[in-house]
C-alpha cells in the first residue's frame, strides 16, 4: 500500500508542476511530496527489522535490506535537495537568469528523476531495473543542460551519448545472462528471486561474458575509470542540488544494480574470479581520480572526481569480499551520500554568492562566509575519511579485509591513493578557506545566511546514523551483507 502512495504522490506533484503557474506553490508541493516518500521509507526500515524480505504485488516489488537502504538514501537526499532548490531556484528567477517556465520544467524533471530512481530501487524484475536506469538518463540529461549555454550543452551531449551507449551494452549483457539461465524453458521469468535459483544448470561461458558486459555497461553509469569522462563535466555543469543527487544517489543506485547481478552469478562454480573485475576497475578509478584531483582548477569538478574515487573504494570493498569488505563498502556508500550532498550544496552556496567556479578566485572564506566555511570543513573531513566520522571506519575495514584475504599489493596501492587524496583535498580546501593573499580586509557577505538549513539537515543525517548505529543500522547492514554472501 505504501508503494502505491509513493508513486501516486510523485505523479501528482509532477502534474502540479506542469499546470500550476505559481512557482512557490510548485516548489512547496514538491517538497511535501518528497517528505511523504521519506516517511514511507522510514516505515519500510521499521518493517524490515522484523521480517527479512517483503514482496508486494505478486512478484513485481521485492524489498530486502539491500533495497531498503537504497530507498532511504534516495528519499532523504531528495528531501535535502528539494528544500535547497526552493531558495536556489527562487534566487535564479529573481536574478533574471531563468524564466518561470524553465523553473517549472526543473521541478517536473526533478520529480521524474526521483520517480525513476524509486522504480529501479523497488523493482524485482531485472528488466524493470534497467528501464529505471534508462529513465534516469532521460530525466537528468536536460537537468545537466539546464542553463543552455556552451559548457552545459557540451556536458549534456557527452552525458547522453556515453550513458546511453553504456546502457545498451548492459542490456546485451542482461539478455545473455537471462538466455543462459532459462536455456530451453518456454516461459521466461524475469524476477530476480527466481533467477537466483535458476542457475544450477547453465552455460559458464555465457555467464562470464554476460556479467562482464553488465559490469562494463552499467559501470559507465557508476563512473568507473575508463568510462568516467562524462562525470566530471556533467556534475560540474548541473545545478548544485541536482549534482548532489546525482553524485550521492544515482552512482550508488547503479552500483546496487551491478551488485544484484553479482549475487546471482557468484554462486555458480567456475566464477570465483569475477571479484578481480571489481578490484581492477576500482583500483584504476582510484588511481585516475586521485591523480586528477591534484591539478583541478574548478571546485565542482574536484568534487566530481572525488565521487569517482569513492565509487572506486566501494568497488574495491566488494571485490575484497569477506564480512568486513562488504560491510565497509555498504557503510561507505551510505555516509558518502550525505557527506557529498553536504559538500555540493555548500559549493552551490559559494557559487551563488561569489559567482565563480575557479579555486584560485575563492579566498579567505572564513571571513567572507563563516557559516558555510564551517560546513565545508566538516563535509571535507567526512569525504576524506577522517576519524570521528563513519567513513574512516568503512575505509579502514576495507583495508582490513584486503589484508585478511591476502591481496597485499592491491591494499598497498589503495592505501597510497587514500593518503594522496587526503593530502590533496585538504590542501585545496584549506587554501580556499583560510588563505588571505594580500592581507585584504574581507567583510562578511549578506548571502551567507541563506540556504543553511539543508546543510544542517545533511549533517543531522550523518550524526543520526552514528547515534543509531548500534541499534537499528547495524542489524540492517548485517542482513544486507548476509544477502550478498561471503
Amino acid at each position, binding site marked *: 500500500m505504501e508503494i502505491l502512495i509513493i508513486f501516486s504522490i510523485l505523479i501528482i506533484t509532477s502534474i502540479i508542476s506542469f499546470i500550476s503557474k505559481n512557482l512557490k506553490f510548485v516548489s512547496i508541493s514538491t517538497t511535501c511530496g518528497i517528505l511523504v516518500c521519506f516517511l514511507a521509507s522510514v516505515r519500510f526500515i521499521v518493517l524490515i527489522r522484523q521480517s527479512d524480505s517483503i514482496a508486494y504485488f505478486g512478484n513485481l516489488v521485492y524489498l530486502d535490506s539491500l533495497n531498503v537502504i537504497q530507498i532511504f538514501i534516495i528519499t532523504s537526499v531528495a528531501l535535502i535537495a528539494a528544500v535547497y532548490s526552493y531558495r536556489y531556484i527562487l534566487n535564479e528567477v529573481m536574478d533574471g537568469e531563468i524564466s518561470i517556465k524553465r523553473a517549472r520544467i526543473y521541478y517536473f524533471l526533478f520529480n521524474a528523476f526521483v520517480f525513476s530512481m524509486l522504480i529501479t530501487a523497488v523493482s524485482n*524484475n531485472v*528488466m524493470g531495473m534497467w*528501464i529505471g536506469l*534508462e*529513465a534516469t*538518463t*532521460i530525466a537528468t*540529461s*536536460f537537468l545537466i*543542460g539546464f542553463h*543552455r*549555454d*556552451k*559548457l552545459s*550543452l*557540451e*556536458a*549534456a*551531449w*557527452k552525458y*547522453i*551519448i556515453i550513458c*546511453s*551507449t553504456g546502457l*545498451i551494452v548492459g*542490456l*546485451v549483457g542482461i*539478455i*545473455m545472462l*537471462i*538466455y543462459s539461465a*532459462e536455456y530451453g524453458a518456454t516461459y*521466461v521469468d*524475469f524476477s530476480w528471486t527466481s533467477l537466483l535459483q535458476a542457475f544450477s544448470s547453465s552455460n559458464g561461458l555465457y555467464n562470464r561474458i554476460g556479467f562482464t558486459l553488465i559490469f562494463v555497461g552499467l559501470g559507465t553509469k557508476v563512473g568507473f575509470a575508463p568510462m568516467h569522462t562524462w562525470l*566530471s*563535466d556533467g556534475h*560540474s*555543469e548541473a545545478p548544485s542540488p541536482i549534482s548532489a543527487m546525482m553524485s550521492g544517489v544515482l552512482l550508488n543506485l547503479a552500483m546496487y544494480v551491478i551488485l544484484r547481478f553479482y549475487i546471482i552469478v557468484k554462486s555458480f562454480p567456475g566464477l570465483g574470479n569475477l571479484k578481480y573485475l571489481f578490484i581492477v576497475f576500482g583500483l584504476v578509478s582510484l588511481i585516475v581520480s586521485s591523480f*586528477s584531483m591534484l*591539478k583541478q582548477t574548478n571546485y565542482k569538478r574536484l568534487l566530481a572526481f572525488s565521487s569517482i574515487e569513492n565509487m572506486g573504494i566501494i568497488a574495491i570493498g566488494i571485490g575484497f569480499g569477506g564480512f568486513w569488505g562488504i560491510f565497509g563498502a555498504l557503510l561507505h556508500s551510505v555516509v558518502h551520500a550525505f557527506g557529498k550532498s553536504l559538500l555540493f550544496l555548500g559549493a552551490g552556496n559559494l557559487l551563488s554568492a561569489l559567482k565563480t567556479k575557479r579555486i584560485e578566485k575563492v579566498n579567505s572564506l572564513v571571513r567572507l562566509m563563516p557559516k558555510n566555511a564551517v560546513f565545508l570543513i566538516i563535509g571535507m573531513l567526512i569525504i576524506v575519511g577522517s576519524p570521528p566520522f563513519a567513513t574512516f571506519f568503512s575505509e579502514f575495514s576495507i583495508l582490513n579485509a584486503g589484508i585478511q584475504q591476502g591481496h597485499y599489493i592491491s591494499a598497498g596501492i589503495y592505501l597510497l591513493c587514500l593518503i594522496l587524496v587526503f593530502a590533496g583535498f585538504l590542501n585545496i580546501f584549506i587554501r580556499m578557506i583560510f588563505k588571505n593573499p594580500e592581507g585584504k580586509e574581507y567583510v562578511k557577505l549578506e548571502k551567507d545566511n541563506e540556504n543553511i538549513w539543508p546543510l544542517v539537515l545533511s549533517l543531522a543525517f550523518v550524526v543520526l546514523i552514528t547515534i543509531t548505529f548500534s541499534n537499528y543500522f547495524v542489524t540492517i547492514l548485517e542482513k544486507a551483507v548476509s544477502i550478498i554472501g561471503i
Partner: protein
Amino acid sequence: MLEILTAVILITAIIMAGFRRINLLTKGFRIQSLAIGLLCFALGYLSGESHYYVIGVLTLITKTVLIPHFMNRSIKELSANREMDPIINGWWSSVIAGIFIAVIYVVMEGFNSDFIIAGVVLLVTGALMLVARKKAITQMTGFLVMENGLVLLELSMIKMGLLIDILIILEVLLISAIMAIMIFYINKVFHSVNTDYLSNLKD
C-alpha cells in the same frame, strides 16, 4: 525470405558506415528499420506467435515514421549537410565494416541462428559510426543503429513480455527526441554541430 531480409540489413549497415551526406543517413536508417520490421512479421508468420507481430508493428511505427521525422526536423536547420573531415574516411569505414562482418561470422560460428550474428554486426557498426565521426547528428545515427542491433538480438534470444517491449521502444523514442532537441540547441548556440567545438571542458 529471412535470409534476404538479413542480407538487406547487413548491406545497409556497410553502406551507412560510409555515408557522408546527412539526409542519406536518414533514408538508410529507414530502410534498415523497414527490413527489421518485415523480419519480425515473417518470424511471426512462421512461428505463429502473435507477439512478434506486435514488436514488428511497434518497430515500424517508431523507427520508420516517428524517429526519422524528429531527425528531419532538426536537420532542416543545419547549414552544412555533409560530414567534412571524419576521423576515419568514408570509404575506409565501409571496408572496416565489411571486415567486421567477416570476423564476427568466424568468431561466432557456434551459434546457429543468423539473427544473433546480424545483431552483433549492427552493434559493432553502430559503435564504429559513433566513434569515428565528428558531427553530432551522425553520432546520434550510430546510436540508433546500435539500438536496431539490440532489437535483433533480443528477438532471437529470449521472449520478453509485451509490456517490457513497449517500454523499451518508448525509451528509445524518448532518447531520440531528447537528442534531436539537443542537436537543435547545439546548432543554435554554436552555429554548427561539429563536436570539435564541444571540447572546452577538458581536464
